[in-house]
């Protein structure tokens, strides 16, 4: 079936660098996308979301970009910190109350 996937299973960066985590989705009916952060031993934590009628959304140190033409989603983290080390998942959704479809996750490692 259709699913959301991430391009790279791991990403290693230096503290202070900007990080970009990519995700490709295949369901053109998806109209809502979320990025989650999962630290070791914890549940996924909401970072930022974007609706399909937007191309870009900014939060604190994070930006999500959506390219519907190529069905691509990215998460940019500015000035990456050691505390950003975690597994990052993108998820797509086709409607409120329905399940999120998760990608496989990218493990971000930040070294000092």
């Amino acid at each position, binding site marked *: 079936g259709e699913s959301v996937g991430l391009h790279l299973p791991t990403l290693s960066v230096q503290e202070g660098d900007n990080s970009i985590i990519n995700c490709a989705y295949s369901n053109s009916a998806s109209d*809502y996308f*979320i990025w989650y952060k999962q630290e070791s031993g914890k*549940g996924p934590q909401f970072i930022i979301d974007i609706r399909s009628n937007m191309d870009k959304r900014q939060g604190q140190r994070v930006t999500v970009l959506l390219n519907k033409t190529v069905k691509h989603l990215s998460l940019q983290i500015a000035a990456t910190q050691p505390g950003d080390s975690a597994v990052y998942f993108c998820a797509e959704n086709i409607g409120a109350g*329905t*399940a*999120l479809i*998760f990608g496989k*996750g990218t493990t971000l490692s930040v070294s000092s």
Partner: protein
Amino acid sequence: DTAVSQTPKYLVTQMGNDKSIKCEQNLGHDTMYWYKQDSKKFLKIMFSYNNKELIINETVPNRFSPKSPDKAHLNLHINSLELGDSAVYFCASSPPVTVSFRNTQYFGPGTRLTVL
């Protein structure tokens, strides 16, 4: 003041046993979910309840039976546990569709189930 809580956090049991995992949310949400995360960190939906009614039931063995006594609770009962059931199980909840277009789901801390 945990938003979505699960008990127990760890569960170690023998094959063939029956076990339950409990989930509670105090966010006032009306939809709750169970997800399974395998050893490769892949998260997949199992069930979803809206106002105590089952709305999503993915291809899950009927040994798994969710129960929602009220809209703040969604428990997961597993019969005749098998080795392949070992995983981390996450409960999540989302707000009413009348409140938010966005289906933002908030996750509990997870229950790590190990079947020996």
